[in-house]
């Protein structure tokens, strides 16, 4: 069917009339349901067995060894089951950006009246990010003349490495599913995520380029400033739950208020909402996303602190951004949206990790949605917004939370 | 405001200003009033017109009349209160030597870049310009391209094939 410009065929091409669009979207939703239904069914049926993979494998391999006549020492199990959660975290940080980048490209495209990746991977370009990753691996690694080679080399590493540590104390569902259960989980996450600023500064200075230097300085100033409202927004949660442990916070958010509203901190009157909003804004600023992405403002500084990076090093920065975004969303889900707690106890046949990932992905969607809607803030407005708006409101929020807790204890 | 009004106002300060006569019966001029002044008095003319309310310098350019051995510079002034009426001021410069005349940047900031462009393309020097440099071509470019007797000297941007070089 000939599809010429709209002036030839009519105000809309036949596949773009509102009716046709409605039909297309319902058809896509139907396909999505068909795809997701077995997946969710499998999740419900398997429950938490995937997390017991190692144990089950060990039991099975013991049985096999019994048939064959070998015996496997028991300390293998302890070592592997200690390493498994960490390997899981490592794997998650590799895989999550692959999905998130694709998802971001699709969401951005649909917001912008276009389609996004469609070719690579047969169905709506699912393998686009994989292809991009392979391309980046094969790219030439360019180091500018006059760059400080050590700093230039180490900057991406320092930017990414803390992310791996930060994922350790997060409960991926119910408190038992934490890779490394810690009593001071929140403190560790906040502390280590601040280390990545050093990576940005190293990148900015080590590249021997004015654009990078400006970008690095801006990024450092922004990251350091916005850590404060982020932590201040978390204080009411800590005060209310009475513990710094993330598993404990998930525990405190289980159940319902009056049987109607889930006991998530988001639904705590006034304090929950203000905290969540401040946390959301501060996280967007920490992860250098629009409207706070002046560190990598393409139209002003070409690429900011990662102008002079190519190939895998640039991919590391990219991965760092998405890893920290995932971390911020996961933390937000755990602290404000109840972590592994279901929407309603009746829905608890769905395993807790389904709820955790669902809430995390919901927050990721919020991040992406905000990115493609708002323009960018100027650096002094950004600083002003942090110090003169977010922090006072955060502190007021803490005071309010304290008052509520005092009233509750009376 | 008509031509005679403008001429009167001008002639108070610059008595040498005259209305452009038709040099040729068949010469079709635009309908705007055109006044010819000697080149050295351009500054005074600009000042006078600015006081008279012509606050917008619309354009400033030059024409190279090779046969008559002169450059003719054209300035157009417009009143923002009545843009339909504009005044064109013309002045002649001899082609030989290094033609120069006073700059009117102090009265009209719009003349800044337009005078630089005229210098760049014709080689007319504007005395008193704060930034007398080429604007469109690079510093050190040989020659003044819009002159009728300009011959292009080959530089590293020509690959020469159009004139038969190997």
């Amino acid at each position, binding site marked *: 069917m000939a599809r010429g*410009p*709209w*002036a030839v065929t*009519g*105000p809309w091409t036949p596949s773009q009339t509102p009716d046709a669009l409605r039909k297309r979207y319902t058809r896509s939703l139907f396909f999505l349901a068909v795809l997701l239904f077995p997946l969710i069914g499998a999740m419900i049926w398997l429950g938490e067995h995937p997390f017991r993979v190692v144990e089950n494998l060990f039991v099975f391999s013991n049985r096999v060894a019994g048939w064959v006549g070998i015996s496997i020492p028991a300390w293998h199990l302890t070592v592997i089951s200690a390493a498994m959660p960490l390997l899981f975290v490592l794997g998650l940080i590799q895989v999550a950006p692959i999905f998130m980048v694709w998802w971001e490209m699709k969401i*951005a495209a649909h917001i*912008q009246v276009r389609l996004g990746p469609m070719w690579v991977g047969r169905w709506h370009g699912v393998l686009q990010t994989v292809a991009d990753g392979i391309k980046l691996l094969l790219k030439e690694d360019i180091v500018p003349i006059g760059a400080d080679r050590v700093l230039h080399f180490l900057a991406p590493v320092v930017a990414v490495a803390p992310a791996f540590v930060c994922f350790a104390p997060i409960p991926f569902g119910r408190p038992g599913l934490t890779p490394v259960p810690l009593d001071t989980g929140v403190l560790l996450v906040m502390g280590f995520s601040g280390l990545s600023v050093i990576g940005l500064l190293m990148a900015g200075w080590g590249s021997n380029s*004015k654009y990078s230097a*400006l970008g690095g300085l801006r990024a450092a100033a922004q990251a350091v400033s916005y850590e404060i409202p982020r932590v201040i927004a978390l204080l009411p949660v800590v005060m209310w739950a009475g513990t710094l442990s993330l598993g404990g916070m998930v525990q405190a958010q289980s159940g319902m208020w009056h049987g109607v509203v889930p006991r998530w901190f988001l639904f705590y009157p006034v304090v929950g909402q203000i905290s969540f909003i401040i946390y959301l804004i501060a996280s967007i600023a920490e992860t250098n996303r*629009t*409207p706070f992405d002046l560190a990598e*403002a393409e*139209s*002003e500084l*070409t690429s900011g602190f990662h102008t002079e990076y190519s190939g895998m090093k640039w991919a590391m920065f990219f991965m760092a951004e998405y890893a920290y975004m995932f971390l911020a969303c996961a933390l937000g889900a755990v602290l404000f949206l109840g972590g592994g707690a279901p929407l309603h106890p009746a829905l608890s046949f769905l395993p807790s990790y389904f709820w955790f990932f669902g809430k995390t992905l919901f927050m990721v969607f919020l991040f992406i949605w905000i990115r*493609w*809607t*708002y*323009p*960018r*803030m*100027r*650096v*002094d*407005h950004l600083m002003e917004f942090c110090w003169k708006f977010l922090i006072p409101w955060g502190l007021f929020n803490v005071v309010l939370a304290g008052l509520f807790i005092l009233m509750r204890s009376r | 405001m008509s031509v005679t009004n403008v001429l009167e106002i001008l002639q108070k300060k610059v008595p040498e200003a005259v209305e452009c006569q038709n040099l040729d019966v*068949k*010469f*079709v*001029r*635009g309908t705007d009033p055109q006044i010819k002044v000697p080149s050295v008095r351009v500054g005074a003319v600009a000042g006078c017109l600015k006081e008279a309310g012509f*606050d917008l*310098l*619309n*354009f400033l*350019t030059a*024409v190279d009349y090779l046969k008559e051995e002169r450059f003719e510079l054209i300035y157009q002034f417009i009143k*923002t209160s*009545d*843009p*339909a009426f504009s005044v064109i001021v013309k002045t002649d410069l001899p082609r030989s030597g290094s033609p120069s005349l006073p700059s009117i940047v102090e009265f*009209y*900031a*719009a003349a*800044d*870049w337009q005078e630089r*462009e005229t210098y760049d*393309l014709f080689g007319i020097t504007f005395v008193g310009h704060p930034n007398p440099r*080429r604007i*469109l071509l690079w*510093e*050190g*470019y*040989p020659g003044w391209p*819009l002159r009728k007797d300009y011959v292009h000297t080959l*530089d*590293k941007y*020509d690959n*020469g*094939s159009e004139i038969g070089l*190997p």
Partner: protein
Amino acid sequence: MSNDKNPISTVDQIPQTTPSFKGGVEPVGRVNETADSLINGPCFETKMERISDHEMLLNMGPQHPSTHGVLRVVLQLDGEVVTKAVPDLGYLHRGVEKLAEHRNYSQFIILTDRDDYLCAMLNNWAYCLAVEKLMKVEIPGRADYLRVISGELNRIASHLLFIGTFGIDIGAFTPFLYAFGREREMILDLFEQLCGARITYNYVRIGGVSNDLPDGWVEKAKSFIVHMRECLKEYDDLLSYNPIFMDRTKGVGVLSKEKAIAYGITGPNLRASGVNLDLRLQAPYGVYSKFSFDPVVRTNGDCWDRYMVRRDEIAQSCQILDQALGDLPAGDIMGKVPKANLRPPVGESYAQLEGARGWLGVYLVSDGTANPYRLHVRAPSFVNLAVLQETLTGWKVADVVAILGSIDIVLGEVDR
């Protein structure tokens, strides 16, 4: 001179034509760098000022995602604040005015397309007005109406592109795809049906226009205008009244009325500074006197006002188009003009019209032959850009992009 047979293999083989490059290039060391010296290399005539220790030179362009073409601006920065800005033009200089002297009058219309390639119809029209003034040609009514319709549609297209790219400069990526990728594509499709081209039209000819409207074009244009009005509301929701956008653009790059007039600024930039000057209303050309539309003027002269003036001008153009499409008379589309060997009488003329960026004028001197004797294009972007030197000082690097974007220049016109 190098080519495939004799590639230049050493530096000595490059012809040394410029005195300042003889004997090798003196390296511009960091100590003596100034914005001026960075422009022209070792420039012996310029006084070398020593910039202070805490200032930095930043070179924006010519390849840059945001300078709207090949414009180079050398900024002297004190931290984030600009202390001096020196624009460097000429990267797109193609010598259009010299080329005019070697082309026929009809051949030159194509070159006008490429001056301001975003509103090429208006460029064509300005040049044709100048030639027609000289030749005293009568334009048929339908041709004039078609010129107005295509000119206003092109103005809308140019302003849509401005909205999109200004949004990107400020950091909002999405309005670009709505304005540029949806509405402007519709206009370009209309033009493609009309004259076969999407950007450089060669449509307005001396004496009239080249093609008549195809069937159903008027209905499509009307449906587009209805759609455009709805989309303006969308842009307002998404961009114009967005608090972040307003923070970035309100109060930034204020251009006072007196400064604007002194610099010869015209068009939307001047109207944003409070001067109600629109050639279509005060000195109408073509059939503009038959249409009634409201002037668009704002008083503050900051970036937001310049943006809103252009956004409101889209609505104004829709108003004009409604009237023009409704009253379109039947008739010829070309006046009595010789098809070949066009020779205007000896003389000169100047004609200008209200372009999308300012007053676009053509000064034409004819000596009776088939080629113009002298042709000067009064390019609004060139004249408007001069104010950049003064306006940028005191603002931050982020504002440089906002201010440059809001002046809305097209490098084809600036450099010609």
